[in-house]
């Protein structure tokens, strides 16, 4: 009984569903909502940019030796028909200490993987950071630590470069041990590094001459 009264009351108070009422209300509601959103957007736009940038610089920091200045980023293509990579040269005291390369592969167990890889001035990998992946937790997802474990030289990629080390999994005759039960992810990971390296090398010569 009581409930019914409540219902009745609220009904009484409600506005009539006439055409104008409806349209006006909807326009008003959406308008106010939009205004609110617009302000929030404006307010968060800055922080979002900052957060994005911060994530990127953090990643670059972890993959390169110490540096004090980041150079202008470049977008370079690894080859015909492939999506291009982003290069971030880093300098210390005006001298190039290494380049961070945002590289990727599409052959992960669950497709796309994006990796920030660092190559020092000698052309060796100085570090990597997995930015984005959808690999299985507990399997492929272990790549963020697997290849940077100094205790396991056979999986360690840091300080090595594809000129001297065969950057493919041992199952395929390479020098790097794959993540247990995740050969696919490991291959993909190495594919991303190889892509970074070869693009780096291709552009090193051209880049140098351009300087």
């Amino acid at each position: 009984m009581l409930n019914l009264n409540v219902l009745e009351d609220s009904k009484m108070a409600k506005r009539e569903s006439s055409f104008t009422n409806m349209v006006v209300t909807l326009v008003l509601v959406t308008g106010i909502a939009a205004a609110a959103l617009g302000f929030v957007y404006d307010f968060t736009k800055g922080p979002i940019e900052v957060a994005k940038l911060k994530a990127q610089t953090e990643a670059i920091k972890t993959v390169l030796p110490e540096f004090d200045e980041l150079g202008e980023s470049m977008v370079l293509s690894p080859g015909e028909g492939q999506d291009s990579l982003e290069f971030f040269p880093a300098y210390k005291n005006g001298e190039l200490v290494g380049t961070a390369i945002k590289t990727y592969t599409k052959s992960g167990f669950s497709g796309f993987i994006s990796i920030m890889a660092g190559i020092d001035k000698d052309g060796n990998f100085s570090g990597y950071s997995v930015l984005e992946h959808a690999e299985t937790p507990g399997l492929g997802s272990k790549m963020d630590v697997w290849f940077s474990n100094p205790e396991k030289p056979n999986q360690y990629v840091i300080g090595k470069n594809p000129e001297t080390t065969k950057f493919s999994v041992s199952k395929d005759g390479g020098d790097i041990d794959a993540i247990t039960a995740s050969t696919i992810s490991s291959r993909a990971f190495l594919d991303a590094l190889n892509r970074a390296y070869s693009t780096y090398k291709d552009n090193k010569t051209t880049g140098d001459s351009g300087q």
Partner: protein
Amino acid sequence: MNYLVIVIGAILVNNIVLMQFLGICPFLGVSKKVSTGIGMTGAVAFVMILATIVTYLIQNYVLEKFGLGFLQTIAFILVIASLVQMVEIILKKVSPPLYQALGIFLPLITTNCAILGVAILTVQNEFNLLEGVIFSTSHAIGFGLALIIFAGIREHLDLQDVPKGLKGTPIALITAGILAMAFMGFSGLV
């Protein structure tokens, strides 16, 4: 070949219900009988494709154009909600039999993650319109496949003596879990 990848990926490998957890409510709620499952599938397919097309256009010709990407959620849901309601009203009047077969499921679909989810995924994957349509069609088929298999199992289980505490939703969820396990066998197909 690219299209085949989208199709198999959406139906089997990344099945929308079993692997991506979208549209679980109708999957659990409307799967008690095979016949209802079939009706629901038809309705979902219809709305999913339609919604993907419309939201694709909104995204590419309105939101992107004015740099309003953050309005995606609100714009999509508004469009989908009105679209579904409109289709329902029209169907009821124009073809009562079709309304009986599909239309009654339409309201259920507005608040179904699958529709909005697929619309957003289409945008995220940067598909073109044709790919988007194939993508959403395949997802709808994947949804229907899971739903109809599941309805069959539930009709079967209705006749079995499932332990009291597990009757109903719990055993349905466990069944869905085993089904998801089985579907993992398709991983890597694309």
